């Protein structure tokens, strides 16, 4: 599956036709506790990670929020 992940083209190593955000985080080893996730410019809340799907061609953002200010 090919998506736009954080503004870059990304080929995901999967045979599935759609993936959930939870599956993406697992696949990419994004385990950071503070994340902002957006699919096609729409915020996805944490409780929706395992029921929000994306497909080939979608734009997905996973932004790590880290301390300091």
């Amino acid at each position, binding site marked *: 599956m090919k998506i736009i992940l954080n503004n870059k083209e990304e080929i995901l190593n999967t045979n599935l036709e759609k993936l959930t955000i939870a599956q993406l985080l697992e696949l990419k080893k994004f385990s950071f506790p503070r994340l*902002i996730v*957006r699919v096609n410019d729409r*915020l996805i*809340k944490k409780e929706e990670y395992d029921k929000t799907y994306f497909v080939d061609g979608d734009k997905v953002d996973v932004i*790590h929020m880290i*301390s*300091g*200010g």
Partner: protein
Amino acid sequence: MKFEKIKSILSTKNVGIAGCGGLGSNCAVALARVGIGKLVLADFDIIEESNLNRQYFFYDQIGKPKVFSLKENILRINPSIKIEEYNIKLSEKEIVDLYKNCDVIVEAFDKAEMKEMIVETVQTFFPEKYLVCGVGLAGWGGNDLIRTERFGNLFIVGDQLNETNEDDPPLAPRVGIVANMMANVVLEILLGKDK
């Protein structure tokens, strides 16, 4: 564009500053110098001596609430700016109430969970609003790692890498760079890219 024209456009704009520490105080001062019409400041903290390594405060302001001292410092630079200041800890409800009329919101919190909270709040309640966040500024050096990344109307400024901790503290140069880059993004949003 001549500075008079820049000032006249900016004088009609309203920018929210969420957090008045290293990022917020320096970003607000930069915006004040170029003549933003109105700033909405919020912070709950008081100034400590350890803040003076990066924050836009002075030694004789130690012990005072940051929002009041920042207002005082900004008005010494540019007395024509309107300032609304709130000495409170921001949560979802206050962010919606205080910043609903802002053209741009600047996220200038310290803690990652607060950064996450404001992004979620703004994107939920005001999905069309511009939000500029500072993410990754600890330590020194690495000028070339500091960048701006755009995600729709969400702008992330910083190295997105270096978290502050006891062994990697925030210091004036890097914090100032990120804060001023955030102010620069605000100008790009408000004035457009075309010079």
